[in-house]
């Protein structure tokens, strides 16, 4: 397929309005295979303006007289307005953008063409392989091993090649346990909490079905987990569905672990919203944030009506429950819902942030996202196909990853010194998850990434982010290593709307940035005066 077939017009004269604070840009507008360009003409001082077409969420066109207006609503929640000379040109450009922004093919997407200066292909892809995580676990305990039972993705298509499992369980047993779990997602290690000698596991629901089937190998696996933990450890299964929903799942072949079959394990139900209702909550919130007309005295109840903060609270408190189980009760925790690719990952990754100081460093957090979201098979391609503005009928879209980022932001707000990264990194991850020149968030699983050769043919976001020039935007200058667990408050007055994301494009940003800039100044001043003396700086992670 040729992009040129979809591009209906070469260029047009246009003016771009970028919302409050940014001056309008005039110049020649041009659509290419992956971008919308605005070239401000030879005598202008400003640079070329560039928008990745993939980041367009919805497009609206209006024509009047001999000119037209295109409103682009982007996946990062920006709203752009283009005033274009010529009715034909307007319609052609609109049609081109529509066609090009909704292309579904992965291998023709921009990351496969993006070749930035200063980066080499394949640089950061093996930055965080499963072996790397296993090395850490193996230093702390020998009850676990790295299994390559899924080497060819045949046991579980959404798992990576290698997973960490109890040493006592062999690969055949794993394969059988996989057949008893939806999508083959048998229980694997997510995090080993060394201080308490307990573990966090994740999986999908067991396929007990209406006949209440059992699987000896699956039961054996969970028994081995308890045996490998500290003596006398109990286990909790945190089911992210309500007891009712879990029971109903039996009708469609799913279900929950029967009490009698898994001695030592106790089931807890913590219902969390997912899928369509979560997406709708996101859409409503963005709508409310962008609605400048609506009477302001109704803002708080409208914000409440969106239920987004309620979802933040659910996610954080379930993660606290899991973390508390490990740290305070000395229990092993298995988390699953139905597929185990959404709210499950939300809980396991947040629980680690609460407990593990390493995951709160810059590299540790990137590793966490890579391991617990990307390699763990969160279907980014499906979930982030559209953002909050799209008029397309929602299929599999859900802002689970955004909800995770919001929860992390809440943690950062409550513990302003304990995260090595700042809001900037979270905003970048949000943007790149929905539309990116990098390959990191492409596809739904490692298997697909392998088929598309994503790791050899695209650049990794981590290489992009870890360039020195990006650091000031992404890091938290006030960071100090905090070896303790950070227990967030989930009281309603402690949770806030993430203004930096949801009101990012409608508020004047400078006052808060001035303070931030000041902190950076002092930190760099300090580092400068430290001079070349080889001291450990506070901004470097310390194990």
């Amino acid at each position: 397929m040729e992009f040129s077939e979809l591009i209906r017009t070469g260029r047009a004269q246009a003016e771009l309005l970028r919302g409050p604070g940014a001056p309008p840009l005039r110049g020649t507008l041009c659509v290419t295979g992956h971008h919308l360009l605005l070239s401000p003409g030879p005598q202008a001082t400003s640079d070329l303006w560039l928008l990745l077409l993939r980041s367009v969420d919805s497009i609206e066109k209006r024509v009047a007289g001999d000119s037209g207006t295109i409103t682009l609503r982007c996946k990062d929640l920006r709203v752009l307005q283009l005033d274009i000379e010529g009715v034909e040109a307007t319609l052609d450009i609109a049609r081109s953008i529509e066609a090009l922004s909704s292309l579904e093919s992965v291998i023709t997407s921009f990351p496969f063409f993006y070749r930035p200066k200063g980066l080499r292909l394949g640089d950061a892809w093996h930055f965080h392989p499963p072996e790397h995580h296993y090395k850490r676990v193996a230093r702390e305990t020998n009850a676990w091993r790295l299994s390559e039972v899924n080497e060819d993705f045949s046991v579980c298509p959404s798992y990576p090649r290698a997973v960490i499992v109890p040493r006592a369980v062999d690969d055949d047993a794993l394969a059988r346990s996989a057949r008893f779990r939806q999508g083959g997602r048998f229980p694997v290690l997510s995090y080993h909490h060394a201080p308490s000698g307990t573990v966090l596991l994740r999986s999908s629901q067991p396929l007990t079905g209406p006949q209440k089937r059992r699987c000896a190998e699956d039961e054996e696996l969970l028994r081995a987990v308890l045996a490998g933990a500290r003596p006398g450890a109990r286990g909790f299964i945190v089911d992210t569905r309500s007891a009712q929903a879990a029971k109903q799942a039996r009708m469609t072949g799913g279900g929950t672990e029967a009490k009698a079959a898994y001695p030592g394990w106790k089931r807890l139900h913590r219902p969390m919203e997912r899928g369509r209702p979560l997406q709708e909550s996101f859409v409503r919130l963005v709508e409310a944030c962008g609605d400048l007309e609506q009477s302001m005295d109704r803002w708080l109840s409208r914000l409440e009506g969106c239920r987004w903060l309620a979802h933040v609270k659910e996610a954080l408190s379930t993660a606290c429950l899991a973390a508390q189980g490990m740290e305070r009760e000395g229990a092993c925790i298995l988390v699953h819902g139905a597929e185990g690719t959404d709210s499950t990952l939300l809980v396991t990754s947040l629980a680690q942030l609460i407990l593990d100081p390493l995951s709160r460093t810059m590299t540790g957090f990137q590793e966490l996202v890579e391991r617990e979201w990307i390699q763990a098979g969160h279907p980014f391609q499906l979930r982030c196909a559209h953002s909050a503005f799209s008029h397309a009928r929602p299929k599999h879209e859900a802002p689970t990853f955004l909800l995770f980022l919001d929860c992390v932001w809440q943690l950062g707000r409550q513990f302003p010194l304990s995260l090595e990264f700042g809001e900037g990194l979270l905003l970048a991850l949000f943007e790149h998850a929905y539309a990116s020149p990098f390959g990191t968030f492409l596809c739904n699983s490692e298997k697909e990434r392998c088929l598309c050769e994503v790791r050899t043919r695209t650049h990794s976001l981590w290489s992009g982010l870890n360039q020195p020039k990006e650091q000031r935007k992404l890091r938290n200058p006030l960071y100090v290593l905090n070896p303790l667990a950070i227990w967030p408050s989930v009281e309603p007055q402690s949770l806030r709307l993430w203004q930096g994301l949801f009101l990012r494009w409608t508020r004047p940003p400078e006052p808060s940035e001035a303070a931030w800039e000041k902190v950076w100044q002092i930190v760099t001043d300090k580092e400068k005066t430290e001079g070349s003396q080889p001291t450990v700086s506070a901004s470097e992670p310390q194990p």
Partner: protein
Amino acid sequence: MSLLRGLLGMELIGISVRPFLDFQERLALLDSALILDVPLGVISRIEKMGGATSRGENSYGLDITCKDMRNLRFALKQEGHSRRDMFEILTRHAFPLAHSLPIFAFLNEEKFNVDGWLVYNPVEEYRRQGLPNHHWRITFINKCYELCDTYPSLLVVPYRASDEDLRRVATFRSRNRIPVLSWIHPENKTVIVRCSQPLVGMSGKRNKDDEKYLDVIRETNRQISKLTIYDARPNVNAVANKATGGGYESDDAYHNAELFFLDIHNIHVMRESLKKVKDIVYPNVEESHWLSSLESTHWLEHIKLVLTGAIQVADKVSSGKSSVLVHCSDGWDRTAQLTSLAMLMLDSFYRSIEGFEILVQKEWISFGHKFASRIGHGDKNHADADRSPIFLQFIDCVWQMSKQFPTAFEFNEQFLITILDHLYSCRFGTFLYNCESARERQKVTERTVSLWSLINSNKDKFKNPFYTKEINRVLYPVASMRHLELWVNYYIRWNPRIKQQQPNPVEQRYLELLALRDEYIKRLEELQLANSAKLSDPSTSPSSPSQMMPHVQTHF
């Protein structure tokens, strides 16, 4: 404070009561060494709960309502009638006015190395503003508070208005609170003038002197042909005030003035609104519908209206280049809020610690905000309709501004909270009495200590490390509901579920960084000195900063 605690503490120990806080989880403090530090001035109401026949634990004792958003409950043993003594002692000391006892500030013998009473000197403050000048003069007509008993003795009025004019204008303004200058723009010379409502009444009375006086004010500024009048009240309230003799400036009487209503509600509405805030935060935070409950208190909406009004005043003066006259009914509540907030937006001097003290001292204390009536110092009549959180609301607005402009204010959140704590504590004379004349009669400055003595002798504690001094920057906060927040650290600070990690970890950490930088710079200089003295090897290496940082303590 030590005397206060001594008073209460001794009695409590003497009758061996079991103090505990009544929270959801019944935090009993029986065995803990917790010392409750409650200045008696904070107490608004003391009630006995339960009778001699009450059954059940903790059903018998005292219930104490405080002015600072909390209630305390002491459970007592029924035997021995110990409660009666304690009730009487507490009542006597918490409400000294009813027992012809002095307010605590008059007994307080604290000494500080700075005298806060010297912070505000009106002549100096007006001189700082460039006054007197060709158009404005300082008058001592109110020296003995004869013109207006709730105004300060020193006033700034138009040069062209004679003392006789002032006396005639006073007859037409509620409580004789004539229009006088609060602030003058250093460049365009427009002014903010404050007063009370005109006594128009039902019959629509006019007063030539008042009309002429406003015209004289207008003429001090030649840039705009109109004087802008901001009436803080909602239009309907202003009309309703005619029935009691008040009213507003009508178009036909004041040709050269433009009148706008700012829709800010009266003291009763504000009191009820704050009461609702307390209901949803204490003792338990309303969980299930937090945001809509918060909305239904309308507190943030009132904050928004006050801020919006002040922004309009500031904008008119700064960009509109028009002089502004601000009044409400009596000109001591909403008017004080508007003029002081507008001045805070316009004049960076007031954003420093001493500048803010001067602002409070000038616009609130000297111009007769009725602190005694609004707070009810030492008065047992807790249901008094004159009580209202107008000053608290002002401080809340300042806090909202400091959130939006983190580098613009020299003071931190602790400064604002400290001011509010001592608004009630009666430890200092600063907020006692309704007006300057009463304070003078009671010799407050001689017989009590000023709150600013406490603050200025320990300024570092109240400094915002992010402060960047800027001259001539006008601050326009965003007064939209989306950008206003409930001041959780103040209103919900007594809730045990609000974790106090550190006073403010960010400030703390920033101070550490500043100190570290200074230390490095010093060391560098030393090394350079040593180097220049003789070519030696700089081998000292500073210790890792992360080892020196205290770790954040967390609790679940």
